[in-house]
């Protein structure tokens, strides 16, 4: 039986020395994703990432639901960062419908988004720890992120999937005494994550395993179109909170963490530094926030776009720029919705970085790309 293969699917002949190895999709070192590596002894000669095991068709589903019922499922690709995942969609719909959000709602959004960034990064860090066999680094972030999850639970009522951002503001106002509790928790949280340096980031074993592995130069980081911590770890000063400020980021003092090395170590350290920056932003936002006022403007039921229109909004999520392209044809549902996610954009760097690397370094390089398989597949 000969099946004619579609273009690009032709089989490749490999050398006899070279072995093809499937890492994943069940392997804990890949996580819902298969990495097909070809190895020569201990060295990787070629790598072919194969995502798609958790593809849910979010973009297709969005075409069948109206602008409000799209909210809960669009945060599903990355539930730990659910506020940031919804952020560009909500900004885009507001732009399409022509809604202006109140000042207090914008501050609440910024606080929620920064809390979520920390919650996501802690989860990512926990898995990075266990990837490298460092169980303490799995337990500590997994425990400490509970502090912030409790805060988000106070705000939205849900621990992980908040669905808190809606076109027109946020669902609920902050609970009473929130500022005090938040400040206390965030200060304690910051103190805790600073302790990670002693156990993890200054640990000679971690440094020996991650330094100078998977080096991505500045030119290549730009050429490959990487984003977020991967880009900033390669020495490109680019953070959308600073470069294209949305909501009230313009009024806040946002510092961008940039490292020049471009290796796995730098890529794992930048998100950690970003968490401290998030704590700074939360403190500033709590101070500058209007103390009272509405947080949500009322929309008409089943809001519609104005004729054929399109909008592309992007925010800085935990994994880099997260863009949402909405095409509206004046109906209650979006005509087309496309999510351009940081994980998918950073994936292109994986084959590039793993070439010539030792197989043992694969987990540290792979997870340092700040890659979330479910988000990449959508």
């Amino acid at each position, binding site marked *: 039986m000969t099946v004619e293969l579609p273009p690009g699917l032709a089989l490749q002949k490999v050398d006899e020395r070279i072995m093809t190895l499937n890492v994943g999709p069940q392997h804990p070192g890949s996580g819902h994703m298969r990495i097909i590596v070809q190895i020569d002894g201990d060295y990787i000669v070629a790598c072919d990432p194969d995502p798609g095991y958790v593809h849910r068709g979010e973009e297709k589903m969005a075409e069948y639901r109206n602008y409000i019922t799209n909210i809960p499922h669009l945060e599903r690709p990355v539930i730990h960062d659910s506020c940031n995942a919804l952020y560009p969609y909500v900004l885009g719909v507001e732009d399409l419908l022509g809604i202006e959000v109140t000042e207090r709602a914008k501050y609440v959004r910024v606080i929620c988004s920064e809390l979520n960034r920390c919650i996501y990064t802690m989860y990512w860090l926990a898995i990075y720890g266990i990837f490298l066999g460092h169980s303490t680094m799995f337990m500590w972030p997994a425990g400490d992120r509970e502090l912030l999850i409790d805060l988000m639970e*106070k705000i939205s009522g849900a621990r992980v999937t908040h669905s808190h951002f809606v076109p027109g503001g946020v669902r609920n106002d902050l609970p009473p005494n929130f500022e005090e509790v938040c400040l206390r928790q965030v200060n304690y949280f910051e103190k805790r994550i600073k302790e990670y340096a002693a156990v993890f980031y200054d640990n000679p074993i971690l440094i020996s395993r991650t330094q100078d592995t998977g080096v991505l130069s500045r030119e290549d980081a730009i050429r490959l179109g990487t984003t977020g911590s991967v880009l900033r770890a390669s020495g490109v000063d680019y953070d959308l909170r600073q470069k294209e400020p949305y909501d009230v980021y313009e009024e806040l003092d946002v510092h961008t963490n940039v490292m020049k090395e471009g290796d796995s170590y730098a890529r794992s350290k930048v998100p950690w530094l970003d968490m401290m920056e998030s704590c700074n932003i939360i403190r500033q936002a709590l101070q500058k926030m209007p103390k009272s006022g509405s947080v949500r403007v009322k929309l008409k039921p089943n809001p519609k776009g104005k004729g054929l229109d399109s909008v592309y909004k992007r925010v800085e999520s935990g994994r880099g720029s997260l863009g949402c392209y909405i095409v509206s044809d004046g109906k209650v549902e979006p005509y087309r919705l496309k999510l351009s996610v940081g994980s998918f954009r950073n994936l292109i760097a994986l084959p590039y970085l793993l070439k010539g690397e030792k197989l043992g370094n694969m987990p540290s390089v792979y997870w340092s790309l700040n890659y979330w398989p479910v988000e990449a597949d959508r």
Partner: protein
Amino acid sequence: MSTDAEQITTEEKSADEKPVAKPVVKSVQVPAFEKSISDKVVEKFGDKIKVEFIKENRVGIKVSREDVHDVAEFIRDGLNYDHVESVSGVDYPQDKEIEVVYHIGSYSDSSLAKQILVLATRAQREENPIPGKDATKLPSLRDIFYSVEFHEREVFEMFGVYFTGHPDNRRLLLPEDWADLPPLRKDFAIKGR
């Protein structure tokens, strides 16, 4: 904890009068910097391109599939854009066309940090698609913007738009044995909807 919850409910009742959303009247003034970008493209290509919109930080350009490669090359070399953020397909069955939209940004030029250039082109749409073997084809921009590699693979499997010149047109997200229509086309319907 229980007192907290009670307080929230009482406060919600008191804050009942929510302001009603009013459409914001946006200024019709064309932003100058964005206009200068689109002017440069118009100057170079004249009536080969159509400027679709000039909004704040976004410039939309529409171009035919014959010219998309040249225009993209000019965008990289002449305008300093250096990476593609997103490649989206949009299916228009009534026009018998599938639009492919490139969102192009720049890291290296700090004056363009906010800007996104939206480059749209359209491929012919087939009623009964045979992905890769029918007329639904576009030139690949992978030799100009390396970052489109996975994005174009995704558009190929989701819309059936084959990118000529792309070195690797395999499936990416869909299963290898997917034999139905490309799923993001409008004629592929979700069951029960």
